[in-house]
């Protein structure tokens, strides 16, 4: 029998097939960056932070779904279960860690090694390269900013505890996506901006955490300690994205939440606009930084 015999031709041949052009290149970079950030096909150490943070982001959601499924007492459920925007209170630290450690992984090595030059020798240019990277960061951040809430919505719906009507269900879905994107976009642009200033991943991660926590401390001291304008809280990157989610859901900081209730003095539109404005400012900074980088000379 020779039917199974094959000739394996390894010679170099010309290629006449289809080429996907610019959008194909962008898709490739985005997918590759996501795989890289999630530690896929990388050493075990590179998988620890993404896997751990994603698990931690979903654990509260699983617990809450379990409570809804197992506890029949509505009063207990009302006391224990958070609203959709309140869920971010459980995972805010996870989001900080994820954006601080994963985003630099996607930008810094390309510049440090010079691989950026090879990317820019493809159909990509600086802008499309950055859009591809930002899309990758936003997409993987959305795994933890949107994913757990979608899990809760789907589970509540299956358990008969979801929104009352199909319209309400769709509105909730839209708010989950919009709120999650608010958080992901601000963290993406902020961490990319910091990563664009250094080729060292560790430095970028440290500075990202410092800026987020520092902005919270400084604005907190100014507003609540020195009694300055509450609008300074719009520069509090620790709180602004989650405050924006509250406003997207039409909720406000609870009045019994001490000094934080002063944030209710800021209109919802101003909060959400500030979220977008900071996202735009940081994105513009990244764009400006990359325009100045000399790849070859």
């Amino acid at each position, binding site marked *: 029998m020779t039917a199974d015999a094959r000739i394996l031709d390894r*010679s170099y041949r010309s290629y006449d097939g289809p080429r996907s052009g610019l959008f194909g290149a962008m898709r490739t970079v985005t997918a590759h960056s996501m795989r890289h950030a999630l530690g896929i*096909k990388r050493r075990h150490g590179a998988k620890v932070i993404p896997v751990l943070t994603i698990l931690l982001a979903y654990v509260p959601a699983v617990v809450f779904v379990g409570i809804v499924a197992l506890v029949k007492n509505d009063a207990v459920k009302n006391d224990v279960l958070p609203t959709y925007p309140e869920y971010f209170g459980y995972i805010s630290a996870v989001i900080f860690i994820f954006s601080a450690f994963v985003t630099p992984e996607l930008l810094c090595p390309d510049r440090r090694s010079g*691989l950026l030059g*090879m*990317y820019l*020798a493809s*159909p*990509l*240019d600086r802008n499309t390269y950055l859009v591809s990277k930002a899309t990758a960061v936003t997409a993987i951040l959305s795994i933890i900013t949107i994913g757990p809430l979608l899990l809760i919505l789907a589970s509540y719906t299956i358990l008969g505890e979801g929104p009352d009507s199909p319209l309400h269900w769709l509105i909730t879905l839209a708010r989950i996506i919009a709120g999650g994107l608010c958080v992901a976009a601000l963290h993406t642009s902020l961490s990319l901006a910091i990563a664009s200033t250094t080729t060292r991943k560790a430095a970028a991660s440290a500075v990202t955490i410092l800026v987020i926590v520092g902005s919270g401390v400084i604005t907190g001291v100014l507003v609540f300690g020195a009694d300055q304008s509450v609008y300074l809280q719009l520069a509090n990157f620790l709180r602004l994205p989650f405050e924006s989610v509250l406003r997207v859901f039409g909720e406000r900081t609870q009045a019994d939440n001490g000094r934080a209730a002063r944030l209710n003095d800021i209109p919802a539109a101003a909060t959400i606009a500030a979220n977008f404005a900071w996202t735009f400012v940081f994105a513009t900074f990244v764009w400006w930084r990359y325009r100045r980088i000399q790849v070859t000379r």
Partner: protein
Amino acid sequence: MSADPIISGQGVVKRWGPTTALDGASFTVQHGVTGLLGANGAGKTTLLGMILGLHRPDQGALQVFGLDPMTAGAHVRERLGYSPEHHVLPGDVQAFDLVRHIAELHGLPRRDATNRASDALYAVGLGEERFRPIGTMSTGQKQRVKLAQAIAHDPQLVLLDEPTDGLDPMQRDQMLELIRRCALEFNIDVLLSSHLLEEVERVCDAVVILGGGLVVANAPLGDLQAARDAYLLDLDGDVDAVMKCLEQRLLTVTRDATQLIVEVVDDAQLDTIRDVVADVGAGIRRLERRRRSLEDVFLELLDTGQSVTGAR
């Protein structure tokens, strides 16, 4: 294959602050292997960056495949391969993964990119090593990976920036052979940027020589050398007298001990040499064509500031 130049520049000027890298460079690059020569800092890498559409000319026009790389950059770069000078490969990535990724970046579907990554790595002699992390490879192997990623997507033109940098003589020979194969077997045009004249002379069909921001030569290698052929004249007799007579006949002569080196442009001048030697009563021990090396041509062009342009 079209006779149109694959790259053409007309009065290209590029300044970096107070430094003028290119000061009105005009040139064409035709099919085959073309050497891009110049001293360090002559603007070779700047020109490669402009061909890739990474830098906009301050003045002049540059076209690649008949397109402006600044306005049609994606279309131009899709058909280009690029191997940078410095070692820019990520150490923790397998050679195969990198080559496949770059092929996908240039538009190949994943299945084709996978097949061609293997083919390209086999073609450069890394078939058995293709799943090794690049960081564990030798300098020679890394240079081969850079070449493989540059050709895996079957580009029309590949730009190689100092591809033999850091290689030992044997590895250099192998790399030059691979570059020659790119043009002859794979049908890929090559623009080879190098400051090593000897290797350009070995593999290139034509050269573009940069000097002082200008193109001082842009011609087929054979034309450049043949236009300045010299003959070595070993004499038995009065060498000084022969030299004086030849100079009186307006020939360019230099003396090297008992030998004369005479620049000859056409056969009539060979007859003149014969007649002069006979008139002086000397004997010719040896009359030998001395093909000038690219180095001779290069140094003379840069010294004299002459410009040589030839058609291919």
